């Protein structure tokens, strides 16, 4: 599906979060929260987001096919884009006023201004920036992150600024534009500063599909979307009538809901029951007390997928599935889903649980079968975090 009607001149949006990445070098672990950017600057942090955005633009220009008109760049004024465009010698149109101090609101305002008029939105920042943009843009606008922040948990970023330029060029220069849905994650920075890694799923955006490799001798396995659909098909076949299922957050569990015709929240905990005429949604965005009610009467299962690169199964972003709920359901009724890509990323490392109940964490530890596709399982270890 083409993402928007083609125009004569391609339009590329750019948002630079000037304060992204400031905290990293001075040990602040991110600049979310009032006053953090100032503190970082006081500590001697040097802005680097604009330089990284410029690198992406330069690579975009290099990768652009000769003879094809380059896209028109529309960006924020000053440090929010224009200075990167100037550094990369890219003609541009700047929106808004130049500011010395920017906030998340500026990012969101600029995203609103760009959302309706560009073919692709590039942004330079970190997970916080991604979260801000995610609040604004819809499925119709493809977005790609230039990694410039301290925390890069979300899958909406290219592997490097240069790669972002290449992917953007490839995406815009061809008529066959493919996007994939990717999760936007962020850590709770307060907790992060205190030394806890707690990724939370905030939503998803569509990003251009990355470059591919040519040198394999057999067709590639399914992409992520297909892998999730394949997992969904498998789980559907395993559902038992009369049983209640708690669905954790994530695109993988949502793909299952989609297949079952249920409208699931992406970041919340939902639950459904399999009735004679099919699955019926019991609750959306459940609180812990709701889940306890649900598991109390009759057999129930938890369908869950690890969130983020650390492979947390319980205790990160799904806290309503409390130790009490897990105990009632029982370990044998926990259904873990993960795409082959996610399993590979673990590279043999265990899935982590931090339910807040150390005894339960120890009981959950051990090997578990993870559903990774139609007729596919991976044996993965669970460990107490």
């Amino acid at each position, binding site marked *: 599906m083409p993402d928007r009607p083609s125009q004569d001149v391609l339009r590329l949006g750019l948002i630079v979060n000037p304060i992204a990445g400031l905290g990293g070098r001075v040990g602040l672990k991110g600049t979310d929260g009032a006053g953090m950017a100032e503190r970082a600057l006081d500590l001697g942090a040097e802005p680097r987001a604009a330089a990284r955005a410029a690198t992406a633009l330069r690579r975009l220009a290099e990768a652009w096919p000769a003879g094809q008109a380059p896209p028109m760049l529309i960006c924020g004024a000053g440090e929010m884009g224009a200075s990167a465009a100037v550094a990369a010698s890219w003609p541009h149109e700047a929106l808004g006023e130049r500011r010395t101090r920017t906030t998340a609101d500026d990012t969101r305002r600029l995203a609103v201004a760009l959302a309706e008029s560009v073919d692709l939105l590039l942004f330079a920042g970190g997970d916080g920036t991604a979260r801000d943009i995610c609040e604004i843009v819809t499925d119709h606008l493809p977005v790609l992150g230039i990694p410039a922040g301290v925390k890069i948990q979300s899958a909406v970023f290219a592997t490097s600024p240069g790669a972002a330029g290449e992917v953007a060029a490839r995406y815009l220069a061809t008529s066959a534009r493919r996007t994939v849905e990717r999760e936007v994650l962020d850590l709770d920075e307060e907790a992060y500063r205190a030394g806890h890694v707690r990724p939370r799923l905030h939503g998803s955006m569509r990003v251009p599909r990355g470059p591919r490799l040519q*040198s394999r001798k057999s067709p*590639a396995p399914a992409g992520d979307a297909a892998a999730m659909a394949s997992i969904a098909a498998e789980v559907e076949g395993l559902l038992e009538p009369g049983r209640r299922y708690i669905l954790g957050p994530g695109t993988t569990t949502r793909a299952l809901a989609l297949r079952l015709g249920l409208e699931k929240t992406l970041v919340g905990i939902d639950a459904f029951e399999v009735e004679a005429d099919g699955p019926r949604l019991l609750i959306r965005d459940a609180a812990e007390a709701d889940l306890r009610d649900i598991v109390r009467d009759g057999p129930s299962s938890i369908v869950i997928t690890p969130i983020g690169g650390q492979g947390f199964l319980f205790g990160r972003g799904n806290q309503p599935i409390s130790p009490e709920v897990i105990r009632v359901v029982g370990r044998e009724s926990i259904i873990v889903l993960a795409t082959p890509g996610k399993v590979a990323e673990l590279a043999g490392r265990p899935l982590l649980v931090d339910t807040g109940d150390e005894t339960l964490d120890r009981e959950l530890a051990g090997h578990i079968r993870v559903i990774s596709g139609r007729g596919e399982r991976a044996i993965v270890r669970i460990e107490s975090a």
Partner: protein
Amino acid sequence: MNHRPGPTIHPYIPNTIPAVREAMLETVGAASVDELYAAIPAHLRLTRPLDMPAPLSSETELRRHVGGLIDRNTSTRQLVSFLGAGCYDHQVPAVCDEINSRGEFLTAYAGDPYEDHGRFQTLFEFASMMGELLEMDVVSVPTFDGHQAAATALRMAARATGRRRLLVNDHISRDKLSRIADYCEPGLEIVSLPTDATGQVDIDELRSLLDDSVAAVHLDQPSFLGVVETHGAEIVRLVHETGALAVVSVDPSTLGVLAPPATWGVDIVAGDIQPLGIRQHFGGGHGGFIASADDPKLVMEYPTRLFGLTGTSVEGEYGFGDVAYERTSFAVREEGKEWVGTAAGLWGITAGVYLALMGPQGMTELGERMMARTRYTMERMAEIPGVGLPFAGGHHVKEFVVDFNATARTVASINSGLLARGYLGGADLSGTFPDLGQSALYAVTEVRSQAEIDGLVEAIAEVLR
């Protein structure tokens, strides 16, 4: 075994030179090669040398032994062969052998489009020339053989339609049928599609078997028993009416005279490329192909690679790459994946060379002349008392059934008599098609001369006397 004073320096193993070994061991910091095997526990090691004959180290010794074994064979160059049944004695142009002997092609494997540009181009050209022969825009790189190509085409059809029953023509090679059955298990049901007295698909039976559970109908053109199907368009119309797909296996050597199945509206065509410039190799010269229209819905179902033409960063340069690489992202393969592996790349290149040498005129003449030689052989055979030709009323390109039941002789005994006279008689059907009794499938290609055919007829008459 000869006693040798020092370690053997193997010509195939450069680093058997003791000094080199020492230097390499020093680099890796090991006292002996045995140290490098530290991960293999003692109880899993073989504690004795392998028990096998002493090596034939020199080429002279090796040639004496292997050449001696090979000399015990008598090939179709010494015998006049009327064997076919899926493997054929066609003219193999010398250029075909020359190209598939080139070390670059022979010893390359799965390099990328830069390392092996030539391989990509030849296989793209193979697909392109097959596309012209078949009048279809999408052709796979070579698969293992025609049997597997048919099985894969049927699985593709089942996925594309979401249905589970396959109607398969009953005048099919028994080995091919068993391969289809094996490959389509579990999940797909195979139903036999009967043939009428003329050796063609029984249209009434087809009509009664078709319903909305049928994923695909498969037939061979010509049939395994050599009969040309003349109701193709009508069959395809009936198949399409129920929403099923038509899958046809075709012998590409017949397509100079026979209309390509695409012209009847067939959805997926499969077949074997052995007739296209590849020697018989005791049955080891096969390669398959799968072809279809350029319909994205079908393209997404190919389990094989598809090489596509594209440009490069330099004007006027051809490049190649895998088309629809992430094919599975379009359609989830709930019926399971298929496996792909090292198939028949070299034979694909060879078939491409063959088609380029033959050209449109060559393929047309090939078909016309095989038909004439086959018809001539049939007419001559019919002159022999007691010999019947059950499907003689139909059209035949290069194969036909000969019925010896009235002679009260077995095909085996007749063939044995023919062998004594220097002929390889047709394939014995008595085991695989018991309904036909003592019948044989004769193949007559463009290389069988009138003298050889006349000689065969005389020899059969003699054997039956």
